[in-house]
């Protein structure tokens, strides 16, 4: 609408507005990834016809070839019919074999452009280019796949067009729009400073804290398959009893010390496997983690096999979240997330510092235009009535569960649900002290959590609406949940005394109403 014409000249050798196909090499990648869909039918056919002897193998091979052929053909058709074009004001994608769809996404609506590269894609030199619009309903555009150079070109182009659209009235001498578009992954001519990076040592520590026993769940899942493939009843008690009896003599022969050592070794093995899983996952995800501040916004790169490279303009950050874990909190490790309309590979927030000390977080928070909470804040706690109610409600389920246990279970068992109810009540009672909120003249803070406190900070003018909601209990007890309309996230402050809630709402509404949406520069 406003003066994109000025930036209409082609930024590169490619003509604008032409319908283009994705990279032909993506046909190979998509056919390859279609292979795994053929695996199970082939196995099924093999087993179904296994009574026919050698014919079974032929049948299985034919099925496989047919499936792969159909897959490749439809991949090709889809590739033929999928075109994208970059116009003066929008990006358009046309797709569909039988029913055609045309989608247009104006540059102004694009929240960010992300490039993703899995291992296979890297071998082929391709990237998946995704345009995030923040519409939430999956209305985004994904170009699967383009060459690395083309991906980078598109990203630069979108940024330039966006700048052209939104900065038409501003003069920004320092930032030459439509400048040097290079085909490298790093745009030339832009100074950037590293805000946060993780070296190997940090990654190792982080990995240890990411201790996970998920691998055992996977193993348990695998045994199901083992059972299916091998005729072996893994849950058959007799089999194991037999095995145990065989071993009995050997086990019994060990001294008591030996048994204790055995148990210890088992625990150590558990610890080693858990740590190794955590380390492997952390290394895969956060290898070479680097957050930079560039003139175009925050740029985060990470990943060992699947590399991701995300750029997010600083003014798009709606709120920030500081989290931690049960154990890592003791050592002062925190994680920092940005809340924005854009999605970060499935999760709603962008992790910008997964494992850092407070001192390291402060510059990142400030770069996003926020301030970390300090001593001057006037923290308010939730209503005491809310504490009472949550204690009662939290324990009620265990107390109710205690009734049938008391009636039918062996004597003494009833103490388990009673103890759980007591623990729940105590946890709720104690957690209340950490359940608090604060407001200053630009930001609103909410914090909760007993062992692993989570803090959320939103900018007052970037909120969209304020609501107070009260359930049947809250209405009688005089407290309310403050619901802040935050783009891209949820910001609730439960259990606020109604007077305080009204006051909070009043303050936030005044800041929202004093600034129009167009001025806050989403």
């Amino acid at each position, binding site marked *: *609408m*406003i003066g994109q014409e000025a930036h209409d000249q082609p930024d590169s050798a490619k003509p604008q507005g032409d319908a283009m196909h994705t990279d032909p090499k993506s046909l190979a990648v998509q056919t390859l990834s279609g292979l795994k869909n053929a695996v199970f039918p082939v196995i099924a056919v093999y087993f179904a016809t296994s009574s026919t002897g050698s014919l079974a193998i032929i049948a299985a091979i034919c099925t496989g070839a047919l499936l792969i052929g159909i897959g490749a053909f439809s991949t090709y058709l889809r590739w033929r019919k999928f075109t994208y074009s970059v116009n003066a004001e929008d990006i358009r994608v046309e797709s569909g074999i039988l029913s055609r769809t045309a989608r247009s996404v104006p540059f*102004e*609506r694009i929240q960010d452009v992300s490039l993703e590269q899995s291992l296979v894609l890297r071998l082929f030199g391709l990237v998946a280019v995704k345009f995030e619009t923040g519409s*939430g309903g999956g209305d985004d555009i994904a170009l699967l796949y383009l060459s690395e150079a083309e991906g980078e070109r598109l990203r630069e182009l979108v940024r330039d067009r966006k700048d052209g*659209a*939104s900065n038409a009235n501003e003069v920004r001498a320092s930032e030459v729009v439509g400048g040097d578009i290079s085909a490298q992954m790093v745009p030339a001519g832009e100074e950037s400073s590293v805000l946060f990076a993780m070296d190997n040592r940090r990654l190792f520590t982080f990995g240890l804290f990411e201790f996970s026993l998920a691998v055992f769940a996977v193993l348990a899942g695998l045994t199901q398959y083992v059972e299916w493939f091998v005729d072996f009843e893994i849950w058959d008690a007799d089999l194991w009893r037999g095995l145990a009896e065989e071993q009995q003599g050997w086990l019994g022969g060990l001294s008591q010390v030996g048994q204790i050592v055995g148990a210890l070794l088992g625990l150590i093995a558990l610890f080693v496997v858990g740590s190794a899983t955590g380390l492997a996952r952390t290394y895969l995800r956060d290898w070479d983690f680097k957050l930079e501040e560039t003139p175009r916004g925050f740029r985060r790169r990470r990943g060992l096999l699947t590399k991701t490279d995300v750029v997010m303009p600083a003014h798009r950050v709606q709120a920030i979240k500081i989290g931690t874990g049960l154990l890592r909190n003791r050592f002062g490790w925190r994680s920092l997330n940005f809340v924005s*309309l854009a999605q970060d590979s499935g999760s709603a927030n962008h992790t910008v510092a997964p494992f850092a000390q407070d001192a390291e977080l402060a510059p990142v928070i400030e770069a996003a235009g926020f301030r970390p909470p300090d001593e001057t804040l006037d923290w308010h706690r939730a209503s005491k009535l809310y504490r009472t109610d949550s204690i009662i409600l939290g324990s009620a389920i265990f107390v109710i569960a205690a009734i049938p246990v008391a009636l039918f279970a062996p004597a003494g068992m009833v103490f388990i649900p009673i103890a759980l109810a007591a623990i729940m009540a105590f946890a709720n009672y104690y957690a209340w002290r950490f359940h608090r909120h604060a407001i200053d003249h630009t930001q609103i803070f909410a914090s909760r959590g007993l062992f692993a406190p989570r803090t959320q900070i939103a900018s007052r003018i970037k*909120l*969209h*609406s*304020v*609501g*107070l*909601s*009260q*359930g*049947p209990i809250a*209405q009688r007890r005089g407290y309310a949940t403050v*619901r*802040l*309309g*935050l*783009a*891209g*996230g*949820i*910001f*609730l402050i439960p259990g606020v005394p109604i007077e305080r809630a*009204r006051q909070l*709402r*009043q303050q936030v*509404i*005044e800041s*929202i*109403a*004093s*600034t*129009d*949406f*167009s*001025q806050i520069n*989403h």
Partner: protein
Amino acid sequence: MDEKQDNVAAVPGDGSAPVLNDADDGALTKLHINYKKALRAQTTIIALPFVIAALFVEEADILPKGLVVIPIALLALAAIIRLPGRRHFARGFAMSTDRLRVVRGILFHSDTIVPFGRVQHIDVDQGPLERFYGIATLTLHTAGTQNSSVNLPGLEHALAMDMREEIRSHIKRESI
């Protein structure tokens, strides 16, 4: 109705400076009385199949006489006679120079304020029942994930249109 119109019309040109706002805690404007009638008609339409089903169960003679049909008929009557009035009473709105406050709910009460400066787009919807009663639903959409669309049903159609124009005039040329 006219009173509301005046309230709306008395808005000064620029909504930028936050002027008085007793809109946030003050008295609410009630919805049009036809909203109650529309709710009643709607409840009747919903309740009817249940009552008919109960009559069929009664015909089947499985359970003692009246065990099914009487409670269901009573519930339906209560829902048709009593509930619409209470729901109508629980709802309300207040529009001021730069914001709209919408209050609703008997059991689950909610009280939401949307500043005009954050409205992305506005809908005025009229279902068949609403059209019969000459009322409409005004919906404000914001970019927030919470309260992303705030509904205000039971406005006289002309008023809903006026409110839409009024709110629209406050939305500066958007440039997301």
